[in-house]
């Protein structure tokens, strides 16, 4: 008899695991939602959701926490993709939180709405009574995330307690919560940045144009290239110049830097990432540089 080799490729293993996690949530929670920002990780997560429930529609709404400082290309992509899927999109707006006096806008040159998002997110979770919230975070992104569970428990203040996490064994996930509490679920926990790109290539998934090299007016701050935009406060000592850049991560314009790159296709991006020696957050995110435990502190408060 011919011996069949049942070796499974890494993308197939990761995809099967993520599908299992999504179905587990759909089966055990009453009101899940999926955080969809138009960034590459949430785009991959959305494709996994499509696969998990096919031929049925995705059985939960999508939610975007909109800082009002997003790239136009990404918002356009978000709306188009949502319409294609016939999915319901909940937009939680940081501007609304500011207008309602829930949060106060930061001032000064480095003002960012990054931290304000947490209040908007938690308010929306409460308003819609979401009990499970899918996020696209990966453990390879950041050292606090490396310790976070796939099913990450949040108390009724939305807080994460890293020292009191539920043990997670085999493929068994504990979904028990009380009213008012919720679980953040990270189906892509075990994916790396390169896995995400390999998957985008394999599946032929469309992503927003700003991930590819383009010419843009930028200025330099703390070694990062920030865009010329109304919402980004630029000082007189920060001259604009034109550069060929692309984005490795997509977030708020005020704290997301571009990298100089000529990678114009997914293949070229994969080549570039395979050779790079700097993490995506280190290269492009001012929000993580605030302190050594910046991410842990924000996550404790209820951040993504």
């Amino acid at each position, binding site marked *: 008899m011919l011996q069949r080799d*049942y*070796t*499974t*490729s*890494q993308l*197939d*293993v*990761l*995809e*099967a*695991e993520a*599908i*299992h996690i999504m*179905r587990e949530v*759909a*089966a055990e929670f009453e009101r899940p939602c999926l955080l969809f920002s138009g960034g590459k990780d949430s785009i991959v997560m959305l494709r996994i959701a*499509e*696969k*998990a*429930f*096919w*031929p*049925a*529609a995705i059985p939960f709404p999508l939610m975007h926490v909109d800082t009002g400082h997003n790239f136009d290309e990404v918002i356009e992509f978000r709306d188009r993709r949502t319409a294609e899927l016939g999915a319901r999109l909940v937009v939680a707006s940081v501007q609304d939180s500011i207008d309602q006096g829930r949060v106060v806008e930061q001032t000064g040159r480095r003002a960012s709405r990054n931290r304000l998002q947490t209040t908007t997110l938690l308010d929306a979770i409460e308003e819609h009574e979401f009990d499970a919230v899918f996020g696209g975070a990966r*453990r*390879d992104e*950041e*050292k*606090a*995330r*490396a*310790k976070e569970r796939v099913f990450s428990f949040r108390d009724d203040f939305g807080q994460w307690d*890293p*020292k009191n*996490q*539920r*043990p*997670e*064994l*085999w*493929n*068994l996930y*504990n979904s*028990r*919560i*009380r009213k008012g509490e919720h679980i953040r679920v990270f189906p892509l926990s*075990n994916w*790396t940045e*390169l*896995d995400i790109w390999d998957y985008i290539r394999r599946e032929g998934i469309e992503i927003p144009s700003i991930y590819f090299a383009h010419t843009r007016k930028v200025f330099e701050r703390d070694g990062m290239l920030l865009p010329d935009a109304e919402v980004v406060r630029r000082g007189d000592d920060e001259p604009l110049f034109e550069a060929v850049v692309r984005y490795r991560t997509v977030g708020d314009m005020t704290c997301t830097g571009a990298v100089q790159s000529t990678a114009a296709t997914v293949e070229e991006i994969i080549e570039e990432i395979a050779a*790079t*020696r*700097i*993490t995506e957050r*280190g*290269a492009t995110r001012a929000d993580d540089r605030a302190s*050594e*435990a910046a991410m*842990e*502190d924000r996550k404790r408060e209820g951040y993504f």
Partner: protein
Amino acid sequence: MDILRFATAGSVDDGKSTLIGRLLFDSKAIFEDQLEAVERTSRDRGTEFTDLSLLTDGLRAEREQGITIDVAYRYFATPKRKFIIADTPGHIQYTRNMVTGASTADLAIILIDARKGVLEQSRRHAFLTSLLRVPHLVLAVNKMDLVDYSQERFEEIRDEFTAFASKLNVGDLTFIPISALNGDNVVSRSENTPWYLGTSLLHHLENVHIASDRNLVDVRFPVQYVIRPQRANDHALHDYRGYAGQVAGGVLKPGDEVVHLPSGLTTRIASIDTFDGPVEEAFPPMSVTLRFEDDLDISRGDMIARPNNQPQVAQDLEAMVCWMADGLKLTPRSKLTIKHTTRTARALVRDLHYRLDVNTLHRDEDATSLGLNEIGRVSLRVTQPLFVDDYARNRLTGGFILVDEATNGTVGAGMVIDAH
């Protein structure tokens, strides 16, 4: 390229962080900004060397106390494989973390300091590895440079450990003499150990055969979710009824005769569906959707198996339980929620037969409770039948978790020994 998940056990003193740091660094999985951050912190603290444990100890409390509290997951890849490291702390008060990390591991690396030899904690790590049925075990005898790369010392440790391991269920045991600090036998074979004829650690990790570790014999498909498209305008899908889940054992093919549990009714697989089209076979760890030729009443928590190869349908379980709760103890009469495959039920602890000393393997039959990090043999009565196999035969249909009904915390992990 496939994935190898491995757990590392040991303390900072054994050179575990140095070893992981070296694997990550040599495979270019550590980036410049991460290394700079670690160098900066090491300098600020007045440490002489670059403390690579700072890469994995990500929580504020861990950095402050200089210890590893929780399981950290790290990732690296070589052209041959992608690796997921579950980096677990070695001390006895973190037994639950090691159990967690080992539950999904294909392989475990236990580090031994060549100067100190086989210690109590090495025996504990080996026992936990065998309890969790990690299929491959590597004993990395580290700091060989400090014993002049002595073949005699290596063999002494190997023989002592082999004698101990013969009392355990260790599938595949490999010994490698290394120096994590100098890189001997980590990535490539070292000239300092000409007497060692085996491969380097990384070579072993890249080549150890794991595809057949999964159970490909006993068909087990726990039904996870019922897919019924409710798009009124699409008549083609009106009657679609698929049963979604992740294959836990065996190989399923369209046309196969299968049995549905708990009903005991048989039918045939009409098709195996995925978003990317129907497939000709499904095996672990694939997530697929099954359709059957007959219209049976099937719901989440049910099991699909083969008529001539079925799991135990059991309400009475004998199991080894690792207790993971702070404060709360497991005692006879404890009532808990049990989650096994996709089925959740309530369980009553009928008996605690013994508590195991994880260092000496001594069985304390007078024990009346299990506290945090303690392991014992327990009898459970479950409110509804579970479809189980011995854990030794299938980790996915033999493992379960216990949840406290008051706090909703995960308080125990169980491995089925026997069921009826």
